[in-house]
């Protein structure tokens, strides 16, 4: 009896429209927040919420970008170090070579886009497997960033400095006013990405070639061009994520960035995007990223140090993918 009721729930059109895995992820997100808030009232404050947001901007932006790469039946391992490289190089130009900050912001995004283009060309035209190609560009960007700044770290201008206005894009924090503007930016990016993926021709082509590359090619889709676009988007978002990181944490370390891509990919997978390509959900990605952010920020509130967060994310990830596997098995 109970089985039938549950089956009926899954067949409910609203649930189907949202997507079962995404719904479960969303409910998990809300429950985590409520549970942490109940265990420790200090968690429920506005400033903690802003802390959670702060920690999620750079991962969220990267995750939105890499959703495109994963949807095209590929992967992008370079986003973490591309984030660091773009932020390092543009930050160095601003602080050491007196380039105006406005140009610095644009250059940061451009560097990300360039690495994305490199990835796209390697994967689409040189036919390198995505894992290998992006592994190569990951190491390349890590080295180039260090070489450009001579292995020195770069500290972006403070909020109070003349060039510090760029921080307002992600957070306004003056005279007791605290507004997480980065959240608005993240939402705008998410909406744009979602529309691009689901409602425009390039997006639908990426979905098609991710689902069945050969069929797409035979249907006349220029697979190489659209696959390259997926990686350009991934790289560009990594560049924007570099700005987010610089705005919140100020200092970019040359050795940093390694590992960020795994956080982003974990967010994407928890949110419901399939690793085998053909299906991508931006809203799911954001939910996955926020789940990880809440775990990262909230576990210390209930007495567990950050190492527990890493273990917890691993468990959540495996669970989420298992749900996806079950879902697909049911469909077949």
């Amino acid at each position, binding site marked *: 009896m109970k089985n039938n009721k549950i089956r009926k729930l899954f067949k409910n059109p609203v649930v189907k429209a949202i997507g079962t895995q995404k719904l479960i992820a969303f409910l998990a997100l809300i429950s985590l927040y409520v549970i942490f808030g109940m265990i420790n009232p*200090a968690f429920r404050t506005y*400033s*903690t919420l*802003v*802390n959670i947001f*702060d*920690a999620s901007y750079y991962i969220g932006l990267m995750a939105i970008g890499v959703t495109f790469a994963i949807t095209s039946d590929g992967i992008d391992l370079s986003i973490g170090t591309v984030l660091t490289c773009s932020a390092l190089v543009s930050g160095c130009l601003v602080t050491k070579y007196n380039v105006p900050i406005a140009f610095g912001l644009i250059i940061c995004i451009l560097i990300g886009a360039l690495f994305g283009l490199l990835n796209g060309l390697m994967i689409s035209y040189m036919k390198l497997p995505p894992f290998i190609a992006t592994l190569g560009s990951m*190491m390349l960007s*890590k*080295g180039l*960033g*260090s*070489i450009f700044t*001579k*292995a*020195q*770290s770069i*500290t972006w201008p*403070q909020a*109070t400095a003349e060039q510090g206005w760029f921080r307002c894009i992600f*957070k306004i*924090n003056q005279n*007791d006013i*605290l507004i997480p503007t980065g959240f608005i930016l993240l939402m705008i990016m998410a909406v744009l990405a979602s529309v691009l993926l689901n409602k425009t021709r390039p997006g639908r082509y990426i979905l098609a070639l991710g689902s069945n590359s050969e069929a797409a090619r035979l249907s006349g889709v220029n697979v190489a061009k659209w696959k390259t676009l997926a990686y350009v988007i991934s790289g560009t978002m990594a560049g924007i994520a570099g700005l987010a990181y610089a705005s*919140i*944490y*100020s*200092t970019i*370390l*040359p*050795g*940093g960035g390694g590992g960020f891509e795994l956080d982003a990919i974990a967010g994407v997978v928890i949110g419901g995007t399939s690793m085998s390509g053909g299906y991508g959900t931006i809203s799911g990605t954001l939910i996955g990223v926020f789940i990880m952010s809440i775990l*990262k*920020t909230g576990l*210390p*509130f209930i007495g567990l*140090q*950050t*190492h527990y967060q*890493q273990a917890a994310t691993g468990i959540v990830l495996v669970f989420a993918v298992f749900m996806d596997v079950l879902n697909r098995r049911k469909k077949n």
Partner: protein
Amino acid sequence: MKKKLLSVLLTAAMAAVMLAGCGSNDKTAATGEPAETVTESKAEAPEGETAEDAQLGKIYLVSKGFQHQFWQAVLQGAQEAAAEYGVEIDFQGPDTESDIAQQVNMFNNALNNNPPAIGLAALDTEACLEGITKAQSAGIPIVGFDSGVPGAPEGAIVANASTDNYAAGELAAEETYKLIKETIASAASPVRIGVMNQDATSESITARGSGFVDRIKALIEADGKTVSVEGHDKWVDKADGADVIIDVAVPAQVTAELSSIDAQNLLNKADTICIYASNQHSGEGLVNGDANLGKLGKDIVGIAFDSGALIKSAVKDGRLAGAVTQDPLQIGYKTVELCVKATKGETVSDVDTGCQWYTADNMEDPKIAPNLYD
């Protein structure tokens, strides 16, 4: 035929690149590690250089990394000494201060070049042990700097050029206690002092942590209050129902986000009255972590170490009550000096490069200002 031709061409290209790399002696050689960076400093030998000095081989200095500007100041001091003594130095460091394996590789590679002397700031002495013993048997003197090489076998390290980190931690404790004495004395319920250490393995960090914890515990107990030390297995002295809790936080890895979260965690606890950060990285983590909460300088006293643009501005505007600065220029300078002396067979001994307490009031002092790098 085509495939064979292609593979022959590729092999030839690889060989050509390798030969080109080996051929250039005075250019920085790219090693196998991806992001390893090596800074070479060719000394401007002054006129009338003696033949012996010019023949001294390259001295390698393996530091904990380049990331924080602190090390740039050390490098600057080392370069000054290299120019004065007419020697060549090679200042290296791993990507991050968590990359112990990378540092061990660098150290071993340096040894393979048979240098006259090596400077080492070990991320973890145990990991470098094999190289250290090798250096000792080959007769290559090792000069420790900054963290030095604590626990190394007898005689392997000929001298150290560093801050007495334990004393520096004690200095921080004494200045901090002056600021929180009243709060502790008049507190009705237990209060908390946070201690942020970026790791629990390198000498400089652990000594500064222990120096602070031991000294402030002694000061608090001298005034009749009880203390409990908890939070990390390395600094543990739990006592139930204590008046003051010293809470030590060490992040899983040395990254900005994790340190920021450690800081937020301490800042959010209702009973925290003071937080001490034992180096530039933790200090910046503390200031970043407070960005949204705004408690530093108001409800919570913040103490940091070293400088850098972020910490300096926080000290200036009062978010941080003060910080302890080392003398990175001297650390670099003395290290090279000790290396040169050791190579010439002179007796060398440890040099304490000293530390000073600075606040918004004395930051501009001529004795303190030169140490406050950006």
